[in-house]
């Protein structure tokens, strides 16, 4: 299990990502894609899109895409390695900062950082969606579904499962009609 096996690769890759991943899982998607598809060839583009849909269809933190990548690569040990590696480093920082919070919250730099981060996160998240769509989606129907799903989330407060379900249904119909 040690050496340069997949478990070690998973742990190192997600452990490093954990320390710089502002914006949480939605912003991390291109980096997860790069690790899983481009660098390590754990997934094809189509498999990556499939797993993203599965992760979004289950309840729970968006973060679970990372657990699923680990599961696909090395079963239960892979799942544990990827999940814990992605959680532990950032959680230690959160734990320490949480304890120091009362000291930080009055400081001007803390409030400046708090108002300066959302624009970066916003840029990262929209780019994340565009990059993953570009990598994992093809054809006019695919991109039509991307736009529909983005509109459902941006303009309504419906459960995102509605968008996934609608996407699946359109895919099914398009497949039956021979468009996919």
């Amino acid at each position, binding site marked *: 299990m040690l050496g340069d096996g997949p478990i070690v690769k998973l742990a190192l890759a997600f452990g490093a990502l954990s320390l710089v*991943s502002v914006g*949480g899982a939605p912003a991390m998607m291109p980096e997860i894609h790069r690790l899983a598809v481009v660098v390590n060839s754990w997934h094809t583009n*189509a498999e990556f899109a*499939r*797993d*993203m849909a*599965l*992760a979004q*269809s*289950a*309840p*729970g*933190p*968006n*973060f*679970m895409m990372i*657990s*699923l990548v680990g599961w696909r690569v090395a079963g239960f040990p892979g799942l544990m390695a990827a999940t814990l590696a*992605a*959680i532990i480093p*950032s*959680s230690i920082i*959160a*734990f320490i900062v*949480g304890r120091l*919070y009362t000291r930080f*919250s009055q400081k001007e730099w803390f409030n*400046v950082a708090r108002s*300066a*981060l959302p*624009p*970066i*996160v*916003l*840029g*990262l*998240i*929209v780019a*994340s*969606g565009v*990059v993953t*769509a570009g990598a994992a*989606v093809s054809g006019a129907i*695919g*991109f039509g*579904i*991307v736009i529909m*799903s*983005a*509109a*459902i*989330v*941006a303009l309504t407060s419906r459960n*995102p*499962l509605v968008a996934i379900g609608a*996407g*699946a*249904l359109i*895919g099914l119909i398009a497949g*039956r009609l021979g468009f996919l």
Partner: protein
Amino acid sequence: MKNERDSSKSLDGRPITLGELFMGFAQMGLYGFGGVATIARHIIVEKRRWMSEYEYASVLGMGQILPGGNIINMTIILGDRFQGPLGSIVALSGLMIMPTIILLALTTIYDAFAANPDVRAATVGAGAAAAGLIIGLGLKMGRNLKLRPIHLAFALATFICMAVLRLPFIGVVLVMTPLCIAATFWSRRNAG
């Protein structure tokens, strides 16, 4: 804000036990579709009254500026505040265990039918929708933020670095974040 309030207890002054932490976070995990942020506020502030709206916003704000999953960070900080380090572990387990089991069950069921052409076509559609969800989440966030021009410029620059120039994630974050903090600091100084 009352300063005397003991923030390690609920708004009613009740201690929040390990059991309640586990159950509360398990609820958030199970009801959180497309991310946990919305349902977390509802459960923590309204339903279980663990903390006030203001306290919740500041803990979540802290979770957002730290690296890692925003909700994961918030879970760690709340668990520790109510029950110490063990509280963090219990809260995080509550949040993750059931959703992980559901995800693996879903994956296993899916894999059993993956060869079916209808399932395959539906998956292509669902995968496209999943990418769209992320774009929609960003757009919704942008609409709610009401950014000032300088911040809008940074959002756009970050987007271009990632989506057009395809620069590495880690580099973009490590360069853009300090620049944006410096610009915010500078614009505050000039405004004040």
